[in-house]
């Protein structure tokens, strides 16, 4: 893709893993880290199963401002809250994706046999405990569009309230919102942008 490289317009692919899972190198091919015991790709076909709105990374915050009695403008600011959020809408109702969004529910797969239909099932009730994920969102580098950039979040929770609308003419989807948790008090994540290939 041509310069200016810093202007990008492409969704990032989102992957989930157990907390503590090592993040892949920024130049690692997807085939090296997407496996059952490592990173789980959201969307059976990745970004092709995301709503056209793409993936939204947001950094909301709250501030308290001090204004002196003799002035109207703020003189100092104090940050009181901040979040790191990654949201997307999955146009993919396969049980694996649905269960992942619903607190990473365990799936039971029944193989078809004589007089036994094949099926997959999972418990819908999420319960008291909230599953923590490690999250990786990967896409185009805004330094060199041929390279990769990735958001790395060591711990997050899915705290959206997905509503599956089953209707005609519009694909059913699952809204997912992941909120970073500073579980180990080491921060909420890193943005890693590849600038050059390895020598």
């Amino acid at each position, binding site marked *: 893709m041509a310069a200016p490289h810093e202007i990008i317009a492409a969704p990032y692919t989102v992957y989930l893993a157990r907390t503590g899972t090592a993040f892949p190198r920024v130049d690692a091919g997807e085939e090296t880290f997407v496996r*059952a*015991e490592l990173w789980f790709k959201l969307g059976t076909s990745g970004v092709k199963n995301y709503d056209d709105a793409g993936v939204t990374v947001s950094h909301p915050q709250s501030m308290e401002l001090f204004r002196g009695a003799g002035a109207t403008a703020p003189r100092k600011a104090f940050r009181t809250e901040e979040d790191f959020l990654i949201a997307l809408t999955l146009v993919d109702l396969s049980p694996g994706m649905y269960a992942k969004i619903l607190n990473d529910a*365990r*799936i*039971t*797969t*029944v*193989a*078809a046999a004589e007089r036994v239909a094949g099926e*997959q099932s999972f418990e819908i009730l999420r319960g008291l405990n909230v599953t923590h994920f490690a999250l990786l969102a990967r896409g185009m580098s805004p330094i060199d569009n041929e390279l990769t950039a990735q958001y790395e979040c060591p711990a997050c929770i899915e705290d959206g309230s997905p509503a599956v609308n089953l209707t005609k003419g519009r694909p059913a989807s699952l809204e997912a919102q992941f909120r970073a948790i500073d579980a180990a008090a080491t921060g909420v994540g890193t943005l890693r942008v590849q600038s050059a290939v390895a020598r």
Partner: protein
Amino acid sequence: MKTIRFDGPEGDILRVGDRDLSRGDTTKVPDDVAEELVTAPYVAVSLVEDSRPAEPQRPAESTQRGGMSSGRTT
């Protein structure tokens, strides 16, 4: 019959007949069932080679035993 291994996530279950397989478990299934499961995109199953080790060939005239202690005199 072919041997399959369930490679799905920890905690998930694959029910084949009356067997519940957890991650890493193997079982023998008819060929058509194995093929269906291995190619299904919704479940992680792989074929396991039935690699029963061949009977070791024993040298016809080699009957020496004893290892390190053989031949030692004190």
